[in-house]
């Protein structure tokens, strides 16, 4: 965890802060979702508690906390209670592996009469070399929360909802995993930092041994190399997060509320935290793979750092911190945009039928993703041959 007390403390705090970020993002997203849906449908939405109804979330949380504890008859006690906890785990573990900004370099300093540093702190919970594989692996554990909830509740709606949800999740996991192969082909690495680093600067690629460079404002983003992969990835993350138009597991008309029919109060909220955590992870992956991560178009991280160093009178540590914060804000802007698209789509598109859903996953998206892999591989071979 680090060489000395300072580094260890910072690293543990980082883990906690990123986990809390996920938790505190949920009320905000719920507020955006409710106000946004109201806006789309010409309603008001929650606007009574606090300015713009912002405190509604707090009121809701307090209310959830004081809800009665309820265990359905014949429910499997352990699984019933373990399921919501399990729903939290994949999102939290995956989010901590995502880089939220460039590393902060802290130069050596004196404190308590002792010499500390220099340190390099990465803006993520833990740096895993094969980050993409780790996130795929961890998020494939998401099915257990659903299955445990479905089985533990001893209700047929829950069971059916859980089975549907997990069948849908695994079906779209194929398209998701396959659409990533395109990105791996283009960048040749599993490491998020390397992927983001390759997307800095203007669009440039080699075409039959000739270097093509675009205008300075056109960023070197993955979406230009792999547009089909981007669409497939986005669509399958919608299905993975069980969001409309893929929210069959909780199709109200048929299944009441799906796998969390028997849940209420804070346990219900924990499922929501898991779902929104999934959305946040998916949006940040979309930003990192296809939209340059924390990079600002036309302003690579090094240039930004040089400009900040020239424009302010901060020391090297301050410049590094400021660069990280500005880059992090750029990532947050992209994240917010994608999260808004998640919400927008929910209130715009109708729901699929279950057979249409499965057909789309297996018969359309999987072949398209395969074709995307083959075309990308052949294109890379042609473009790089001399």
């Amino acid at each position, binding site marked *: 965890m680090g060489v000395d007390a300072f580094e260890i403390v910072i690293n543990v705090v980082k883990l906690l802060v990123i986990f809390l970020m996920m938790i505190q993002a949920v009320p905000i997203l719920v507020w955006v979702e409710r106000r946004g849906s109201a806006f789309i449908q010409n309603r008001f939405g929650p606007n009574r508690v606090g300015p713009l109804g912002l405190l509604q979330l707090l009121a809701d949380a307090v209310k959830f906390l004081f809800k009665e504890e309820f265990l359905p008859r014949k429910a499997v006690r352990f699984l019933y209670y373990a399921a919501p906890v399990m729903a939290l785990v994949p999102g939290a573990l995956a989010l901590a592996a995502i880089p939220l900004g460039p590393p902060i370099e802290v130069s050596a300093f004196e404190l308590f009469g002792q010499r500390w540093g220099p340190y390099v702190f990465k803006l993520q919970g833990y740096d895993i*070399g094969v980050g993409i594989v780790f996130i795929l692996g961890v998020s*494939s554990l998401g099915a257990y929360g659903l299955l445990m909830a479905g*089985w533990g509740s001893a209700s047929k709606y829950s069971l059916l909802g859980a089975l549907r949800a997990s069948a849908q999740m695994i079906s779209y996991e194929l398209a998701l995993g396959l659409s990533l192969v395109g990105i791996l082909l283009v960048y040749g690495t599993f490491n998020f930092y390397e992927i983001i680093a390759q997307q800095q600067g203007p669009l440039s690629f080699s075409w039959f041994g000739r270097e093509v460079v675009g205008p300075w404002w056109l960023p070197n983003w993955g979406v230009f190399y792999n547009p089909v992969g981007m669409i497939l990835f986005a669509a399958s993350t919608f299905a993975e997060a069980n969001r409309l138009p893929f929210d069959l597991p909780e199709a109200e008309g048929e299944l009441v509320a799906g796998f969390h029919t028997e849940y209420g109060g804070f346990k219900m909220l924990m499922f929501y935290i898991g779902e929104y955590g999934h959305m946040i992870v998916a949006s940040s992956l979309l930003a990192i793979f296809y939209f340059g991560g924390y990079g600002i178009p036309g302003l690579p991280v090094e240039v930004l750092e040089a400009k900040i160093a020239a424009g302010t009178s901060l020391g090297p540590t301050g410049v590094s911190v400021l660069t990280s914060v500005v880059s992090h804000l750029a990532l947050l802007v992209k994240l917010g945009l994608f999260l808004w698209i998640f919400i927008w789509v929910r209130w715009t598109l109708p729901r699929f039928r279950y057979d249409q859903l499965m057909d789309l996953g297996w018969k359309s998206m999987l072949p398209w993703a395969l074709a995307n892999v083959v075309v990308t591989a052949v294109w890379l071979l042609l473009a790089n041959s001399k």
Partner: protein
Amino acid sequence: MLELADYTFYFLALVTLVGGIAVITAQNPIYSALWLALTMVSVAGVFVSLDAWFVAGVQLIVYAGAVMVLFVMVIMLFDLRRETNAFSRGMVSGFLKLASAGIFLGLIGGSIYNSAETVFAPPPAELEKTADATKALANTLFTKYIFSFEVIGVLLLVIAIGAVTLSRVQGGTHAKHD
């Protein structure tokens, strides 16, 4: 001096073994499956402690994320609850089975113990960093083991067709006895 790495290993080994014992002793198959999933995850952790990050990720994706989900799903589909007699009967045969497993464990343990010169051998210098390790893995897989790789492709095709065909079979077994 024991380091963080050692404690991490002991923690993972503990989880793995507790999970393994629970798998074979749980009377409810769904608990067996969930414990096995935990065991798989901690085995992935053991892989990571051996610097095999990519294989650990694959372990999570394939075992914990796919195979165990299939197990849990099948158990849920059949609504398999607590089994009244989960273990095979017979005192003598049971004792023999336990004894043979014990002898087996003793044999392996003994052979490990007797290879004492490697017992405290220090590990070699760290392998290449993870990214390069994955590339080395890929290079070996696609040159030295290319034939096995294609055979695996054929095998998977056969399994895909066979499993679907099996699930369609209606008869093919004797009528139920007794």
